């Protein structure tokens, strides 16, 4: 039984058309308005990277907890991890856009600013890129090891690769905790180098896990609708939606804690962050962010009538992908652009990156049998039943 996903011609052309259309807008916007283009590049690249990292964290958690129910879906997060190296190449391009995005990278600004001088041993261009390369090496090595272990398990069987996957996963979540935290500090938080929040990395890490898991669920549902994953049943849906439910609550907890503590403490150097996000037109986004990323998943994933329903879960998962965009828009755009702008540039960038992500994920998904063969818990997963 070797079911491989067949990528239809239509899908391939659509993805390539999305990439080409996106690339055209991207090139144009770099000529017309480089600052805005760099903000979009950072947003979209970080967003799809976070989905891939979130998926890798999802699969690592499954390995560590030795989950039976999810073992037949493990190719989906594995395929999503394939985006990491591509995002690394794009992220390195930030070198050419430092002066548009990060004002700590401007020597003239730093010379006149005591705080930035104090932070300059950490926030300087060479060290910024050394860290970036180290992070990407860690992620690429770990995701490759996990993927290879999974493929070797298919080929050889036995318990060895199962145990190895668990070990790699433990290393992976440890590395992620350090690297992804600093990555979010470096790339997103240092857009406003005077402001700092220790909850920031936790919130972004959870957001990656949250939206990465939602994307895993969405891809599984889409494949099910296309005739793959025939074994997907109500019990799987219940477990998937429990993930979304649990993560939306953790996301809400961190996002709210960060806001509430700063609001209550009322210290000017901290409140400037939210002051910017409450005025100049971002206030609606602030509330809609909580609505999409916490309230709607919380309400819709609560009753079992809704959270076992494939259509409802699919709608929520699609909504959450836009939720991640909105969350990052709210973090990046006030800092770089100062006012909410949304137009053809934003749409073009998103379509281009979405096309690239879909293309790479689909290719990786088609490269290996969709259902792993020798996973010890495969039977349990195929006949998963919870009460």
């Amino acid at each position: 039984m070797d079911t491989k996903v067949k990528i239809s011609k239509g899908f391939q052309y659509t993805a390539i058309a999305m990439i080409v259309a996106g690339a055209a807008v991207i090139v144009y916007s770099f000529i017309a308005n480089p600052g805005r283009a760099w903000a979009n590049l950072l947003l979209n690249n970080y967003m799809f990277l976070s989905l891939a990292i979130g998926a890798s964290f999802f699969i690592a958690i499954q390995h560590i907890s030795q989950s039976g129910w999810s073992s037949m879906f493990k190719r989906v997060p594995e395929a999503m991890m394939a985006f990491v190296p591509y995002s690394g190449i794009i992220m390195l391009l930030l070198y050419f856009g430092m002066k548009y995005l990060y004002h700590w990278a401007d020597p003239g600004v730093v010379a006149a600013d005591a705080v930035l001088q104090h932070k300059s041993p950490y926030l300087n261009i060479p060290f910024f890129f050394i860290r970036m390369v180290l992070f990407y090496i860690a992620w690429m090595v770990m995701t490759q090891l996990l993927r290879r272990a999974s493929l070797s398990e298919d080929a050889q069987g036995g318990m060895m690769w199962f145990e190895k996957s668990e070990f790699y996963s433990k290393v992976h979540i440890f590395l992620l905790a350090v690297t992804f935290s600093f990555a979010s500090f470096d790339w997103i938080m240092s857009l406003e180098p005077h402001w700092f929040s220790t909850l920031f990395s936790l919130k972004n890490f959870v957001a990656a896990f949250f939206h990465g898991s939602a994307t895993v669920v969405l891809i599984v549902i889409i494949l099910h609708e296309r005739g793959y994953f025939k074994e997907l049943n109500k019990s799987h849906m219940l477990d998937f939606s429990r993930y979304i439910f649990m993560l939306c609550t953790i996301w809400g907890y961190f996002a709210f804690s960060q806001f509430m503590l700063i609001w209550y403490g009322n210290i000017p150097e901290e409140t400037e962050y939210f002051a910017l996000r409450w005025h100049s037109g971002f206030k609606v986004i602030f509330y809609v962010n909580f609505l999409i990323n916490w309230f709607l998943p919380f309400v819709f994933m609560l009753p079992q009538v809704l959270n076992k329903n494939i259509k409802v879960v699919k709608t929520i998962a699609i909504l959450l992908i836009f939720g991640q965009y909105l969350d990052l828009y709210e973090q990046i755009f006030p800092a770089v652009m100062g006012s909410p702008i949304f137009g053809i540039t934003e749409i073009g960038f998103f379509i281009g990156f979405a096309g690239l992500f879909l293309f790479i994920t689909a290719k990786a998904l088609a490269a290996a049998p969709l259902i792993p063969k020798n996973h010890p818990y495969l039977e349990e997963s195929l006949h998963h039943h919870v009460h």
Partner: protein
Amino acid sequence: MNNNHIIGVFDDEDALMEAVHEVKQKGFVIGEIYTPYPIHEVIEAMGKKTRFTFAAFLYGLFGALGILAFMYYTAVIDWPVNYGGKPTNAFPSFIVVAVVITILTVTILSLFTFSARAKIYPGKAYILPDARSTDDKFVMIFDKSLSVNNSGDLEGVLKGKGAVEVYEKELKPQK
């Protein structure tokens, strides 16, 4: 009153579940099942449903809305005080209290609901057919008067499905 029961003791969950399905199919009426830990399949096999989760949701809703209304009334309507220049309706800080009180409300009201529905109260005389069900054994009991039908003997069925022990006992409430 004859309160004699047939008691089957099992070593593990799978043997118990097989026996449960078997005796149900043969038409015996299961009196009660005692397990060391909750098994959802048992609840399902006994034909029982629970609306407990919905009750818990209602308690949560009541707790959250109740405490928010209470804080709004005390801090804004009845006794507005200016704390450090905050608005009297300091809504974000209310949420922390609301979360904690909601959890407390749900916990306490669920405990009372469960106790009332299961008729458990302090000092109750309880029936425990086999004390080992609080340790590592799975115990199924049958009312003796209902345990005879034309599908053969109950003891044989239980033994056949892996019961480690089957015996008869008169159940008495214990203090």
